[in-house]
């Protein structure tokens, strides 16, 4: 069984949602990708901040 599929069987709550696979989880801590996301999130946040003042 794939690692990401293990938790689906643990509770009914878990069984009815989505669980990220190994690629999605790896990207969460991939330095290059996260640096790009860091820039993107900062820009998005600055836009919301500027709309709120």
């Amino acid at each position, binding site marked *: 069984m794939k690692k*990401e599929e293990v*938790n*689906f069987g*643990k*509770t009914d*709550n*878990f069984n*009815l*949602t*989505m*669980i*990220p696979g190994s690629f999605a*989880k790896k*990207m*969460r*801590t*991939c*330095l290059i990708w*996260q*640096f790009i*996301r*860091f820039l993107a*999130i*900062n820009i*998005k*946040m600055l*836009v*919301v*901040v500027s*709309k*709120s*003042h």
Partner: protein
Amino acid sequence: MARLVVLGGGVSGHTAATFAAKWLGSAHEVVVVTPNSKWNWIPSNIWVGVGQMTKEEVTFDLAPVYAKAGITYKQAKAVSLNPEGNESSDKSFVTIEYTGQDKAGTTENIEYDYVINATGPKLNFGATEGLGIGSELGEHTVSVCTADHAEHASHELEKCIEAMKAGTRKKFLVGTGHGMCTCQGAAFEYIFNIEHELNKAGVRDMADIKWISNESFLGDFGMGGLHMKVGGYVVSSKLFAESLFAERNVDWMIGAHVSKVEAGSIDYELLDGTTGKESFDFSMLIPPFAGVGLKAFAKDGEDITSTVFAPNGFMKVDANYGAGAYENWKASDWPRTYQNPTYSNMFACGIAFAPPHIISKPMSSPNGTPINPTPPRTGMPSGIIGKAVAHSVCDLITKGDAAHLHEASMAEMGAACVASAGKGIFTGTAAAMTVYPVVPDYEKYPGTGRDTDYTFGEIGLAGHWIKHILHHLFIWKAELKPGWTLIPE
């Protein structure tokens, strides 16, 4: 010379006081009344609570900062307001009781031209039997609401980790300690930081971790949830929150009102009316909030507390408190200027203002127990409102009573929020979110109530970096270090 008195030195009060002092200069006086000697960057208490930061890293002494800003600092708690003065004077005043500065217990009347109530919440542990007494934390659970609480929580967590390393299985229960709590986000951060630390310590397989919350669905966060554009879909925060819990093997119980806390267990009631007990070895339950209990008196000494304050103790402002049933609620019910409708020289900001109603859909059990999150007024909105109120008061002082009041409706402002899910410069993660507006406006945005172009969320290391940077940035700003005014709220 006019005098502005700011009651409270948290995010909102500190923002209001420091900007007012900067804008008014030495021509007028700004007084801050706060019972605390230290300022606390509360969002980082989460990391103190898992031993990843010290109390000293999230706090600093207020006295030197206020001295630098030219602010008169009174380490005291506000007791009562006399907006009409008393029989011997027409001048408005606030009665305070010192908690420090070698005058603890003594009282003083401070006259004011304008007052900003930013007293924040009373941590109402006493609302749940066994959770605590009044605003004092009880002995059965821990808290991360203050830096001292978080330090205590960290020690208790360390004891659990040691026991697990010795082979004893432990049950962790984290969430809200009453049906009317807010601040689910803090509990959300804490439960995933615990999970992260247990993994790091190599004892995750010895732990059962469970979430208990008054939300009717995971991801409500007191804002009725939010919808985001992801992968070409517009999806509810429910799906993302449930996904994270399932991925990290954290079970949940929602729609829960904790009615009693005992050593090692809680009693709860669910939205469907069922009741039960849940055991724990370690539990962090957020208390409900209430106003700090300020009283108000008319000139003749008559108690006018109910005129100035809502029944929950928060100050009435320019909100529509008569909206009635949920179906009638509108974004325009929410206050814009935060001016008290009875006394125009009184304002409230941050948690201290009385919201017109909750944001989430109101719910109660068949037994009549209300179980729904109360609206969040912390973080970015709190700072923005504090600054807007300071701006209004400064204009009233310098331009006169006809000055235009500045507006900051939570139904027209967005918020950026970063919820930590584990600390580590290369291994940490956090959910970075923006929501626009904070209070959904179903007339302007039919469907989700919010602008999905500006409402988003994602989890990753980038979010952790942002939270870490914000920690340093906001403490820098609060200490009024060079360039502090350039850092947005």
